[in-house]
């Protein structure tokens, strides 16, 4: 199961990299979102999935380490807030400058 998850996360990393290298703002933002998903998946996988036990000591011989899930949850909340913010920011940039092409945004700084 871990191997499978790692492969999935690798695929997500490459897709995210591809998207982030494109020129449209929305694609880049989707890329960052996928990048964080890939990381979260990997965080869960490298810490060991421990097949099906509850995260409580004493509930049985096996137990799952709850920390990776806590870390993931924290990170997901942060990425969620950031994605929301950057979507608004990108929309605003689109309204002000009339383009969502990164190359055209460069331009001169004179307002």
């Amino acid at each position, binding site marked *: 199961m871990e191997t499978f998850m790692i492969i999935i996360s690798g695929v997500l990393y490459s897709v995210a990299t591809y998207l*982030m290298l494109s020129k449209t703002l929305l694609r880049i933002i989707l890329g960052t979102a996928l990048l*964080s998903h890939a*990381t979260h998946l990997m965080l869960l996988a490298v810490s060991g999935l421990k097949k099906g036990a509850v995260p409580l000591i004493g509930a049985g011989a096996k137990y799952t380490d709850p920390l990776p899930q806590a*870390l993931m949850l924290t*990170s997901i909340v*942060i990425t969620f807030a950031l994605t929301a913010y950057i979507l608004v920011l990108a929309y605003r940039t689109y309204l*002000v*400058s009339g383009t969502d092409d990164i190359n055209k945004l460069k331009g001169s700084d004179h*307002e």
Partner: protein
Amino acid sequence: MNNLVILPIAIPLVSGMLMIFIRERIIWHRVISLISVAASAACAGWLIRLNQTAGVQTLHVGGWKAPFGITLVADMLASLLVFTALIVSFACLLYMFGSIGREHERFFLYPLVQILVCGVNGSFLTGDIFNLFVFFEVMLIASYVLLGLGGKRRQLKETLQYVLINMTSSTLFVTALAFLYSAAGTLNMAHLAERMAEAGQSGPMTVISILLLIVFSVKAALLLFFWLPGSYGAPPAAIAALFAALLTKVGVYAILRVFTLIFPHQPQITHTALIWMGAATMILGAFGVVAYKSIRPILAYNVIISVGFMLFGVGVASQAALTGTVYYLVHDMIAKALIFILGGAMISIAGTDRLQDIKGLIHYRPLLGWLFFVAGLALAGIPPLSGFVGKVLILEGGIREEQMAVAVIGLVSSLFVLYSMMKIFVQGFWGETFLSEGEQHDTGKSALLPGVILTALVIGVGIGAEWVLSMADLAVEPMLDRDLYIRAVLRAE
């Protein structure tokens, strides 16, 4: 256990949240901001006192003992930096009152500054590396909004770039932490340091440390600084001053902490990389200060040069170099805030930041000119001002460890700093003024009070170097003898 440790984090957080509920009462915002920062600074001052008398202070949050819970650790390094950061924020707040305008103030400027300060203090004080990530994000999220506040085209563009770069590097940070947790089984910094000392720093661990180095380099503008000049040039001067004083320094602190506490065992790889990255940063920064002819980019590239210089000190990692680095960090926070505030005042008076259009400001505001002159000398490291002692110690450490080439680069980069400062001073303040009476865009008076306070600090830190160095020595102690830190966290009664 000492509850005082959490106050520099909790006070700004609570007052920031409080201010959101009284949005229209700007006067109250100002009063609460100042009280909050002053109260936190008092707590930090008290922590410094405790560090001098009783050693490292820790707080196991919620009563969960390390390494299971999150520990806040106030050793001298953390307390000193928190104290300096708060003093600098106080001065920046004073400048904001007079310069930033009602629109910014109405749209949650002061609450955001408080959250930023909370994140900065948290990053300094935390003893858990995942918690460091969280406080980094608190600080960065506040900075994203502060950068974009105002919504001009240029600001939006720079904010987008800044947010995307930091999101990517934060994701890398989590990736590195995932590797670290699976390899070491803990995220508490003291516990990590202990494990690393017991088991040795194996190859995979060094790879993880390099990954962390890349992440922190983006935040600290070490070599990966391409985002910095743009984003520090976009927001109003008061906000840029706050950023220049605090944000990159948190990155420098993170590198300093991680590579003296957790990963000091493979210096031939990690520390060599640090030294040469520092050298490259100084060289490229020096190109920057020479190439530009506007105030903001020149100041931004000065930030980059000093980051390179400090990380040269971290890379050398001898006692003299580390003491110098800590001292220089304190100096740099004060001096960078000062120079950005004064530069901001020049821009606001002249209405432009192109040097060729600014002239003769000394007739209009002599005090501003002389403050700028002193600040420029301090940045370049002229004795007896504050930059001098730090530079001497770092260079001494570098030469003792036979890093002659980089030490020379450091010295030459100081000359470039001096050249760029004098370029601004001579072109901006000397000569006949272009502006006739009443044509000034702004009086520039709002920069005088914070300017005088910070200049007094720059002179004070330089003349009272003995006193500051005694604190820097205490700050370096746990870096050289890691057991001091580990014992204080893991084996506290």
